[in-house]
């Protein structure tokens, strides 16, 4: 019996030999949130991550540009993706996947920025100086400001400071934890602008004046401030900020229009989101690789003789139809997105001066862009807005600037022949399908 007991004990002890590591597993290709803020270098990686999110197909990787251009008189859609078809037809239902992608894409950048803004003060790294922390937070806020501004001019009633239809403003970290998610409602347009201005002013103060065009700089913050004030009809401020950038020696209108798109990071660019074959953008996917986002015939027909810009719509060997060539690399897809370039600042200043009644200044700024393309300057400022929107179209086609520009100067209904409520996109239907949702849809949708 004794033997039996020994055996039994041995057996049972064997039975419960536990492998302690069985339940302990960690991912090998991801980190947990607290690791993102354990050192200065981690924080710098998190900043890099913000740019990566900007590159997403959902955002500046194609969607924000081509949704706008398909929706307007710049491009037409010849493929079978229903979300692009709907944009092309000018009737975007709230279920449209393209506007959903833009909405999510921009908020992904905002969320990453929120994490950085909240996380940086607590980083336990002696080498991470206070000045460096201020600069990092300024960079995050600059990109957060860009995100909110893009969202506001596409989803909010940005032309009306008294409107209730601003954006839901998330300003704090959730630490990526579902337990911290709060349901919020839309802020007013004024509140949204105030928040954006605040971010951009902090950014302007904290960012260096640098000629690194691939990242946020003081000039980017100033450019975005100019654009924000333009939308708010704060024309004096818009001119002041535009002038700061135009007068900055780091930036100038590139003498050759083609060179902007054929070289990299020219003086033209204030913020150019670069890509490489290992870190691609989808900009040439839709326009060159696939014959889907194609220039509208009216756009092609509208160019004047001798306009250099017309050369960026053309044929690619082996492929039928003329295509947009601003993003031409359809093999390795290393096409940058031109988020803001100096020509736009001239446009801002032209537009602001026009509305302030300074017609000569307005014309001078417009002609600066026009003559660079090889055209003769306009002699007078008669029908200035018509000249302005044409120049704007020829200059900025396939860069996704058309829709909110037309809305800003109150020309959208006329030019695009759309109903008034369609000046902005609907808030994606998915937002209203969530338990406890506090958002309201844009009127008309």
């Amino acid at each position, binding site marked *: 019996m004794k033997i039996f007991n020994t055996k039994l004990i041995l057996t049972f002890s064997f039975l419960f030999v536990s492998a302690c590591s069985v339940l302990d597993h960690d991912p*090998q290709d991801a980190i947990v949130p607290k690791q993102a803020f354990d050192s200065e270098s981690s924080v710098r*990686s998190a900043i890099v991550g913000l740019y990566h999110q900007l590159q997403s197909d959902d955002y500046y990787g194609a969607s924000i540009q081509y949704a706008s251009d398909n929706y307007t008189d710049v491009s037409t859609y010849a493929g079978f993706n229903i979300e692009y078809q709907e944009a092309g*037809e000018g009737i975007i239902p709230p279920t449209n996947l393209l506007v959903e992608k833009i909405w999510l894409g921009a908020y992904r950048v905002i969320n990453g920025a929120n994490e950085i803004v909240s996380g940086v003060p607590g980083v336990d790294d002696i080498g991470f100086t206070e000045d460096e922390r201020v600069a990092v937070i300024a960079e995050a806020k600059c990109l957060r400001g860009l995100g909110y501004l893009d969202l506001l001019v596409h989803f909010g009633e940005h032309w009306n400071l008294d409107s209730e239809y601003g954006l839901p403003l998330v300003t704090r970290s959730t630490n990526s934890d579902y337990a911290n998610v709060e349901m919020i409602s839309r802020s007013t347009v004024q509140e949204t602008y105030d928040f954006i201005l605040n971010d951009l002013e902090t950014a302007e103060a904290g960012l260096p004046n640098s000629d690194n065009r691939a990242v946020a700089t003081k000039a980017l913050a100033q450019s975005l401030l100019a654009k924000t004030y333009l939308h708010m009809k704060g024309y004096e401020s818009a001119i002041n900020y535009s002038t700061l950038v135009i007068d900055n020696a780091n930036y100038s209108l590139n003498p050759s229009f083609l060179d902007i798109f054929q070289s990299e990071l020219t003086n033209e660019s204030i913020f150019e989101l670069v890509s490489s074959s290992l870190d691609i953008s989808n900009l040439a996917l839709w326009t060159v690789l696939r014959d889907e986002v194609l220039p509208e015939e009216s756009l092609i027909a509208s160019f004047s003789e001798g306009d250099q810009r017309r050369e960026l719509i053309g044929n690619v060997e082996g492929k039928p139809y003329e295509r947009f060539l601003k993003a031409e690399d359809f093999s390795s897809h290393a096409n940058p997105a031109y988020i803001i370039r100096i020509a736009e600042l001239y446009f801002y200043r032209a537009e602001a001066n026009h509305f302030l009644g300074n017609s000569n200044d307005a014309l001078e700024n417009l002609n600066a862009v026009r003559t660079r393309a090889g055209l003769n300057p306009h002699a007078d400022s008669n029908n200035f807005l018509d000249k302005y929107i044409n120049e704007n179209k020829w200059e900025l086609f396939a860069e996704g600037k058309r829709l909110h520009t037309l809305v800003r100067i109150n020309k959208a209904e006329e030019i695009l022949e759309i109903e008034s409520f369609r000046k902005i996109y609907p808030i*994606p239907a998915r937002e*209203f399908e969530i338990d406890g949702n506090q958002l309201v849809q844009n009127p008309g949708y």
Partner: protein
Amino acid sequence: MKTTCKLIPFFLLFTFNIFGQTSISGYVKNNNQEPLIGANVSIKNTMLGGACDVSGYYNIDLPRGFPTSENITLTATYIGYKNQSISVALPSMGVLSRDFVLEDDVIGFQSVVIVGYGTQKRGDLSTAITSVKGKDVINQPVANLDLALQGRASGVSVASSSGQPGAAVKILIRGATSITASSEPLYVVDGIPMTSDNNSILETGGYNFNSMSDINPDDIESIDILKDASASAIYGARGANGVVQITTKRGSKSGKTSIVFDRYTGTQSPAYIVPMMNSKQFIEMMNEAAQNDGLPADYFSSSGPDWNRIGDPADPNLVNTDWYGEVLRKDAPIENTSLSVRGGSDKLKYFINGSLFDQAGIQKGTNYNRLSFRTNIDAKINDKTNIGTNVYISKSDALSTIGDNSYFGVMINTLAADPTMPVFDEDGSYSNPFHYYSWWALENPAAAADLYKRNTSTNRFLGSVFAEYNIIDKLKFKNSYSLDYSYLKDVMHYPSTAAESWQSGVTGKGLFANSENLTWLTENMLTYEISFHQKHHLNLLLVYTTQTASNNVASIAAQNYSNDNLGALELAADIVDASTMGTSWGIESLVSRINYNLDYKYYFTGSIRRDGSSRFGADRKYGVFPSFSAAWRITKEPFMSDFNFLSDMKLRYSYGKTGNQDGINNFASRALWTVAAAYNGSAGISPNRMGNAELEWETTTQNNFGVDASFMDNRFSVTFDTYQKLTTGLLLDSNVPGYTGFTTVTRNIGEVKNSGTEFSIRSFNIDTDDFTWTTTFNISTIKNEITKLEQDNERAVGGTNIMKEGYPLGTFYLIHWEGVNPQTGNSNYTDVNGDGVINSGDMQLIEDKTPWPDYFGGFGNSLSWKGFDLNVFFQYSQGNYIFNHSRYAQEQVGWSFNYGGFFIPYGNNTERVENERWQNPGDVTDVPRASLGYEFDEEGNAISALQPNWMEDCDQWLEDASYIRLKTFEFGYTVPSYFAEQYGLSSLRIYILGQNLWTKTAYLGVDPEVSSNGENITRIGEDYGGLGQPKTVYFGINVGI
């Protein structure tokens, strides 16, 4: 048996044990020399008989005056065994000894069923388990054993996602219990819970390569499918979708060695090819479209603008390419060769098998082959100790072309390819579809099948060792270690001439990836078996087991090759992607079970399992899964004694909870930042998963009531089950507000209910020495319903489907097509939101047409006469619908893209469009008129686009896919043994087998069994360029040495 049981006391009452009396006695045992306790031996045409005791001994005392001059017939019967009769001459006095060795009745109640960590006899089951014997599986010409299960087991539905050989099939046991997690059952091979994931990283577009295809069907002895909760709860957090237990063959202790050589070879062809228009019909339709739109009637054949001239329909030299014919093989070879050795003694048993399987796909460019070896050994070391090992090694190669749903995919491009395009241009290169007249084809289909090359090869090692020790009588301890290791290699090469390359401006693309998977399993098991007072039988089980699995992947993608001959990465100028990925998980479990029966009349089983899993939230690490079942053999009750026609009848009830932790990401509960967020040459990190510490497994609670009965001496046996499964805490990617920076978080929300009824019957119609005829039939119903989602209770899935409370998974969500207006020939659609435009805002839930059948099943007949055998098996499904997405590409009736006044036809159309399209006012048809899709002014300029007569996401393409199919037809001849022995053989059988030879269906696509979306349960029932299962015929020879 009932009858004879009652006879015994009767007999004893009237007989006296008087010296000199004659008696008959002996032993009744089975093939394994185990006594059959309770077996009955009776004398024909008398009421005399006796039952066996614990040693299998029976004794019949003959009454005085029993006639001794004649021969009598003794019959031994026992549940689960074939009756055996012998004729004996009675001595006038003394003891006559006669022993019986009864043979297993194949599906009999005595057959052993694998129940998870043990076995039970079928007659003693109180749970719902369906068994399929290896014989039904191994004779099927399929790479995957799961394909061979089609129609064989009630409640089990099987659909193939692709005709790609080696591709995974979708198996559902009693419906779908999950949305995001897998609804696939757990596979357990010889006790090892397997990972059946797709480990290939190649984009296949719909189908997966299922790692279960590494398992050789030849090795399989039996498959036991655990369906109800009491059966599957023993696998706890992995049991919710049912369990498929696969048992491989083992040696025998008979002392004889049998060597079997089996070889079959045959061909496969497409079961159905959708007939398309020829070039003449295509051009004529385009001209008709132009004419209908007010353009000249020879618009596409006149020598006007080049772009619009497709060709002259009257031209006898018109190119006419049959694209399906160009990409499909009508004589794709399939062959299998295997050599097995099975034998052993009391001390050592062995089974060794080597097989080579090779199957070419019916689509050119596809092939699957597998070389495998198995050795199973059991050794008895001493009276107390047994050890054993299973070793399985396989190497498989799956050749494929390009993903099914890719832009450049073979079948996708074939759908509507231009018949006027030649396969080759005059210079001998593949013609470029952009130079011809279908907008649809982006790649020459023949080029897609020829130029795009991919090979997924897998080396797999499955091994286990075990030792079993009898601590004391009936108390056994078993310890086993198992390893499942696979190394998978993906190699892809597209040359510069492939459209995927040249269209993206590169000279060739290549990819190399490998994936290493390792699963470790330890099992420590105690069993105790005891019977007391002859009536009480108790079996106890206690198991502690852990399993860990890891997966490591590395991949490199390259482009711009210096030549087209080799895909070696050294030849590529640019590396465009290089990444590594690693993940792992673990589960630690404690299992216990009790089986009790009282006199084989009342049965009770209870089990409980506690699983700890690394996959779930920090606050929910452990789950407990209890179950019980009870059964009552009603025929053992005295009051049933008058129902003589009932041989056996048992009522069963079970209840239990199971979990589903599979199919969900290993780190789904954690908040994570990705490290793949580079920009401008710097590495970056970015939040990419929202965490949920409360995440846990899905829980399925199942009730099952069943009846097993057999009638008229087991001539008919039936099984009936009805069940209800409620799955709660469904793991769903719940939408979170977009302003959080995330789209979803994985949460336990949602409930889905599956209920159904299953019935199967087996009848031995004729059973004589020369002639046997057996019929089987099974039918099942499944009702699937989502009973809870989120508050808003619905969500759209993938453009064509919706999930909504009160409706089944896979419910279609489409624009509603009202038909063709007989006056105008135009399609009418329902404008749901009344905005005057038909677009995605007009999609609606389709109530009455779901992908779930009203009922499905199979039936078959097996006949044998002397040496001949015939097996005919049909499979059927009624009332399920398929979204025939392919037809959207093939029935656009002339619709064209307008490129500045040049009209590029969308693509070719089916013969159905040729025969049935609307042509004159008053035509009643479901194919609209031909039209380019534009309104033209008098000069022939397109002014505006018309509402298309065909819409992609529309119920126009929703079809009833009910079918009945001759799944298997097998005819064989076994030569008489005296003849075989003359040649030194112990047996010789030759056979011919056909699969999918005949199908009756109204479905217009290639195959009503196809489902293009692989394992995505929310989008089942879509056919988009599906290839369908092949029609196969082969000849085989089976030689025993």
